[in-house]
């Protein structure tokens, strides 16, 4: 009887170990690195660079970009899905780069703009996209507590007021009528998303 039990225990141990060894790991370890630059292509240090996987209220990893070089470097990241990088700094508008592949190393260098600083039209459009992505990430969290944690950590209420300025004041480029109509539609839709944060 005792021998049978011992044999069964040994058999289950062997099968568990072989299962662990033979099953390939689904979460590869990757490196994410890059640089943060301002609108004049100068490196920006002190920017909070945070890796978010949708569904998590807190970042998987975060660090500040280095002084002088503006570089950041995450090693050995194990991510359970495509991820976003969020760039936050008190002087600059928050930006989000979304849906990066979790199975390959990434080199992402990002241009960020000072709050209220006129910027190219593509950057204005990206500002709206980032705001909407932020609302999406918050909405993706199931529990109200998680949403409150996420929003409380990175939302800046005044950002939404800046997003409501005239398109011509937001850009340093000439705006065609077609582009103005397009961006104003984007702006209206983006601002309407704000209520979903509450």
């Amino acid at each position, binding site marked *: 009887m005792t021998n049978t039990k011992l044999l069964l225990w040994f058999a289950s141990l062997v099968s568990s170990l072989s299962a662990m060894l033979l099953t390939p790991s689904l979460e590869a370890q990757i490196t994410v690195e890059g640089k943060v630059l301002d609108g004049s292509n100068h490196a920006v*240090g002190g920017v909070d660079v945070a890796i978010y996987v949708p569904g998590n209220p807190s970042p998987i990893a975060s660090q500040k970009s*280095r*002084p002088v070089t503006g570089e950041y470097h995450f090693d050995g990241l194990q991510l359970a899905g495509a991820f976003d990088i969020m760039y936050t700094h008190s002087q600059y508008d928050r930006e989000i780069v979304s849906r990066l592949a979790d199975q390959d190393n990434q080199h992402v260098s990002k241009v960020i703009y*000072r709050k209220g600083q006129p910027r190219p039209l593509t950057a204005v459009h990206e500002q709206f996209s980032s705001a909407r992505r932020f609302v999406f990430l918050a909405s993706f969290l199931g529990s109200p507590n998680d949403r409150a944690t996420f929003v409380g950590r990175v939302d800046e209420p005044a950002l939404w007021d800046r997003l409501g300025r005239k398109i011509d004041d937001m850009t340093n480029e000439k705006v065609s009528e077609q582009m103005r109509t397009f961006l104003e539609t984007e702006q209206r839709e983006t601002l309407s998303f704000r209520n979903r944060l509450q």
Partner: protein
Amino acid sequence: MSSSQTSSSPGPWDVPPWLKRIYEWSKVLAIPAIVGVAVAGYFGRQDAGVLGYVLGAFFCVVYFTIVFIRRNIQASHLAETLLSTSGDAPPDERARAVQELKRSSAFAKWVIVFLLVVALGSLVWLLYQPLSYAVRRERPKIVVFESIKYFDPTHDQDLFRESPFLEAVVAYLKDEGQAEGRQTGIVLGTTKAFVNPTPSLNLAISVDDDEQVVSGYAFRLHRANKRLSYDPVPVIYAKHSVAFSLPPCDPGDQLFFLGRLSLIKNGTAFPPNLQDNFTLSVSETH
């Protein structure tokens, strides 16, 4: 017949007329008094005090109007009964009907006076604030700091106790400053309260020294019903200044600045007097 006799020679056990009138009025006023106490207890501690006053006034008006209409219906009913009776009605019934009509008429006058006073009061109350704002509203020519100083963790704990979220903002600004690799100091500044209502305006904080960088957040301090609220103000950065787009402000509102002064060159000393170091300028919003 017996009632006229009783009224002409009141007995020792008859209730005096003035006490009867108090009793009648107490019946009328009891309900609004009870409702008023309950409502005041609730709305008195809320920001919705104004809503409480409006609802209270509305209730009073409706209540007195109902009381008046009810009395009017009773008097009309009596008069109708009297007039529809064939032949002469008994004198005491006629006297009662006439008295009821007189009382109804007198009450109607009081109700009209009351309603006129309420309507006039509501109108004045309704127009006072907008008119006062329209007349007194102006863009201040200069805004100065009432106080501006470096953050001191030991002396500024009261600030954190009153508004705990500021502790997180200070920690964030400190971390960011350290990560930038510069010497940084956290600055707390409060402007003098606005004397008049203001339109939307831009308030820029600038430093004259090229070796200094100023950044941070600003809040409009607004007091309502003995509560202080911090309303975040949008920020716009320029090279040596940071501008805040203030919404229309009430008298007594202030701008609270929580920022970071960074020195580009390490080893240089922080300016000792921040009042002289920072310049505040006012401009219109675009």
